[in-house]
């Protein structure tokens, strides 16, 4: 999309990448120990704040599954996003 006249710098946040997703992460807070692993490794940085339970921003989550794979407590599972 071309936007010719630029009065202020645009941000990539305009680009909602959540619609790329095939699988979605589901977090089980009962198993989560708030270690921050998923939040550190998320390529999008959309797992919320370190020190708190993960809160996925589905506007941007691409569903790669790194969070589920890296979670030391297996508190995140991936399921088909319908």
């Amino acid at each position: 999309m071309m936007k010719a006249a630029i009065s202020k710098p645009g941000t990539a946040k305009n680009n909602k990448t959540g619609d790329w997703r095939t699988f979605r992460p589901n977090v089980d807070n009962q198993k989560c120990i708030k270690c921050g692993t998923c939040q550190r490794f998320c390529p999008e940085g959309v797992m919320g704040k370190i020190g708190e339970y993960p809160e996925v921003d589905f506007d941007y989550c691409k569903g790669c599954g790194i969070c589920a794979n890296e979670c030391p407590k297996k508190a995140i599972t991936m399921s088909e996003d319908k």
Partner: protein
Amino acid sequence: MTDLFTPGHRACAGCGAAIAFRQIVNALGKDIVIVNATGCGEIISTPFPESAWEVPYIHTLFENVPAVASGVVAALRAQGNDHTTVVCIAGDGSTYDIGFGALSGMLERNDDVLYICYDNEAYMNTGVQRSSSTPLHALTTTSEVGKALHGKEQFKKPLLDIVAAHRVPYAASTCIAYPFDVDKKLKKAKAIRGARFVSIFASCVTGWGVDTQLGVSIARLAVETGMWPMQEYENGEMKITMKPARKPVLEYFKLQRRFKHLTPEEVAEIQKTVDGFWAKHEAGEKK
């Protein structure tokens, strides 16, 4: 609140470089200027007129990133700014190949620049062509597997050693799978003045043919098998900063399409090279 590297960037799902960029801005903070080479890093983060960087950013070419950074830092210092860190971010194509001359010049002049290479071992942006960082026998679209060729025929260029030979104050290698190591080395580099170089091993799930959820664990396997040594050069002294478990290299290869064609002989050949590196290092330690 989001990072200084925002979501909405166009990286593939599971991108290792995007993880590296988040680690970089989180470690270095706001008082930086990023000089970014052409490559995946640029095309995923700054499609006109948008940017995923919430810090000052300039995109330049494959071949002149360190030269532009030298200019930026000279201008800042001339203005009396003695605190802002000028950071180059470039892939292995720019660092090992196309911008190698300009990098060597910047290192030789010992300009006050922190150069960060995110190494994913090929030209991923243009469709996975081999670079001089691509490892031996790996499949790329310009080192194909067939009757005439069986993947790349050459070794990966030992860039960290070449950088260190310029006698720069700091040169190190790290890996996205070890976020605390990345953070520590970048912060250490930031505190030093002069030409600094940090190489971050960043997986490319698309180019390597790996499942997206393995983006981090495949990078960790490169370290665990000894394929990617974690090193630090300070004042000419090389130090290994992490002793790997030394899993067989096959464990790293078997998860990747780019190594699927390897014969047992080829695997053994690479294992021997890796063993040789570690035997040399361990012998040096016992002295």
